[in-house]
């Protein structure tokens, strides 16, 4: 099969970018989308030009490194898959495919299709952990965790931190990402002692990074490669307001908006 690509090329954050067209010919429908880009890059290299920069690593949908908006959809047309797990059989022969980076104020562009998602790391640094040091843990079976809680925590923990939720949101909100981590840890008995502090600190950092507000359109869930549920946003809101009520007045003032 053959396709025409319109790819966003931008040499750096301070230089203007533009769409550049490329032909990708003789493709096998069982190729992954990134393998198609590999082939296009081989051709570009052979022509003596600089190939398209794009993030990728595991190529099995789990590391969260790949990050393309394909035909206007973060991670492309298929439901619950990352860009790397998108295959050419999902496209029509002769189709024109538009490829862009994840765009958001909090994800500044580095080059071509590559953006900087360090904001996510800083949100985790604010409280996305349980404060336990190696060596201090009791026996793994000392605290039973109801299976339904462990399963729900796992549903939330499945987030790969790719940022598609942000890219898909008209407000570039990170609520799905943040709520997944808050829910994962707050659902478990091990995470309960820091429950309030965690949700307040993570939300505060999320706002500081410049992510937008959530208006519950659900576009995040629709593009999430792991199908993280919108319900976690509801859970985080509940945890957040509960924490505000319980927080000392100083902390309340910090979060008053």
């Amino acid at each position, binding site marked *: 099969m053959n396709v025409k690509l319109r790819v966003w090329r931008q040499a750096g954050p301070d230089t203007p970018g533009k769409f550049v067209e490329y032909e990708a010919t003789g493709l096998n429908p069982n190729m992954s989308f990134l393998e198609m880009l590999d082939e296009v890059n081989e051709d570009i290299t052979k022509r003596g030009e600089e190939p398209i920069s794009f993030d990728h690593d*595991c190529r*099995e*949908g789990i590391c969260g490194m790949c990050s393309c908006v394909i035909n206007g959809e973060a991670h492309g047309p298929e439901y619950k898959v990352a860009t790397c*797990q998108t295959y050419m059989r999902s496209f029509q022969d002769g189709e024109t495919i538009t490829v862009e980076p994840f765009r958001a104020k909090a994800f500044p562009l580095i080059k071509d299709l590559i953006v900087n*998602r360090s904001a996510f790391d800083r949100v985790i640094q604010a409280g996305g952990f349980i404060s336990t040091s*190696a060596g201090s*843990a009791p026996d793994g079976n000392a605290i*039973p965790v109801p299976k339904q809680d462990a399963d729900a925590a796992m549903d939330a923990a499945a987030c790969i931190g790719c940022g598609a939720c942000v890219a898909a949101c008209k407000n570039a909100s990170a609520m799905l990402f943040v709520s997944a981590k808050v829910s994962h840890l707050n659902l478990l008995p091990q995470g309960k002692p820091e429950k309030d502090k965690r949700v307040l600190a993570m939300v505060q950092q999320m706002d500081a990074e410049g992510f937008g507000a959530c208006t519950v359109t659900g576009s995040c869930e629709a593009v999430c490669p792991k199908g993280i549920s919108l319900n976690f946003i509801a859970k985080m809101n509940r945890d957040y307001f509960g924490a505000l009520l319980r927080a000392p007045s100083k902390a309340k003032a910090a979060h008053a908006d």
Partner: protein
Amino acid sequence: MNLDAKIPSGPLAQKWDNYKRDAKLVNPANKRKYDIIVVGTGLAGGAAAATLGELGYNVKSFCIQDSPRRAHSVAAQGGINAAKNYQNDGDSVYRLFYDTIKGGDFRAREANVYRLAQVSANIIDQCVAQGVPFAREYSGYLTNRSFGGAQVSRTFYARGQTGQQLLLGAYQSLMRQVSLGTVKVFPRTEMLDLVIVNGHAKGIVTRNLITGAIESHAGDAVVLATGGYGNTWYLSTYGRGSNATAIWRAHKKGACFANPCYAQIHPTCIPVSGDYQSKLTLMSESLRNDGRVWVPKKVGDKRAPGDIPEDERDYYLERKYPSYGNLAPRDISSRAAKQVCDEGRGVGESGLGVYLDFSAAIQRLGEAKIAERYGNLFDMYHEITGESAYKVPMRIYPAIHYTMGGLWVDYNLMSNVPGLFVAGEANFSDHGANRLGASALMQGLADGYFVLPNTISGYLAGQLGKRPKADAAEFKQAEKEVGDRLQKLLTIRGKRTITDFHKQLGKIMWDYCGMARNEAGLKKALELIPKLREEFWKDVNVPGEGGDLNQSLERAGRVADYFELAELIVLDALMRDESCGGHFREEHQEEGECKRNDEQFAYVAAWEHKGVSQPPVLHKEPLKYEEIHLATRSYK
């Protein structure tokens, strides 16, 4: 060179306790005076950096990804072993130790493996405390599954994403330390050289992958936890970015490389479908708990799997290894698959595949139960192949998955270069000639959380105030060498692409140094590799410049290192004139199984670099077994 493994005295079961009793410590007030460099943020590196930060050291943590959470440990699916014996099925520290030593075909160091089995239980405790959502029973207690090479259920898991969840646990601990100010993370930064000052590893030279800046970082000790070198074979289950550059540059600076020929070829991967393929995808070994492996009995039987009646199928693993059946260890299962395919009984278009069939399990347990156990793996298989494994059997074939070899380390996890520590897959120490399933996660976290933080103080105690400045002459020299090499790659502007060379190297490695090896093939590879390397340095085309983000330049440097490493792998495979574990020399077999030669080869082969195109020098560390008797490995 005398390679002293520094194994503590006393009976096997007491060595680690004896070691800790006698270990030199760094007092809490002094810990903050030390800077430790940790390269790599997978299970070993992430856990080590976090734990060293918890102890109070200043840690600089480096990774090539945009976030430490993306290291390739994230892709491990099936589980992590631990000798908890929660199942009351006869497990113990000794049994996990013995299974691991036997699984490695008696080519691992006894004391290291015993320690690994001992700390395995602490790992589970630690991960549960961090909030790793392991699978549980309705009682709320942890559950287990079985993995290859064991007759007990000791594998803990988080659906099919155990590696991801364990890595997120380590990553979150690391982020906590960043917020506390003990750890500084350098993402998108690649280590390109090790700096040695007065014979000690005291820093690294890195390239900022965004700006291209070459920078020096000095430390009191350097920890490499940069994973394995399976991408030397081009197609593998590794991440595309996984590479051997950090350990290879350290090797060129004096660290011995041990057992490079020990590579694991995993039996259950999705078969190759075309030339364009960039990587192979693993289907977790846990699937062999419920899936049955078979091929048609008749050669060239091209009927659809459903049309082949039961009595015309050969469930060859169950036939050949009745007591372990479909859970025979990886090296054995892989070779068995190769054998049936070589006989012309392989399935799929290429004939390089075997079936992994769940129909019996679905009949027995129902589709819902199978979906609960393996749903995400079945989804992944469907995404890649477009086939539903609920309806038709999966097709699988072996692929390069892990490397047991790596930099030589002693019991402290320190290489022969003082101050250079190596953890996780990057070192050679625990898996011998074959690694059992669910043991890589165990080793990575054991090294990172419990071993290295306890052993590094012994070295650091004598090093207070000896850290050089990052502008010392040794750093300037290393920076210049790194810069010159990058410039050289950029000025060739030849006709062939990097991928083109890498694919060709990978094919040589797979054909002559893959699942089955022989003298003639290995010698042939030793002729081909240096020639291709020469051509690479004359004719490779590396586009772009060095002063900004340039993925081609990154890849070119790594492929250049694979060329040198590949030669050492083949040399080691040729030297090891026996079969053991994943290293199968066709000359040495008994009814298709590995035939070890303990009299001549019961040693660790540690190679010392003497310059590119110069023969490396072999140092032998004899493997002395105090507790166990060497036996023929049988899973029949």
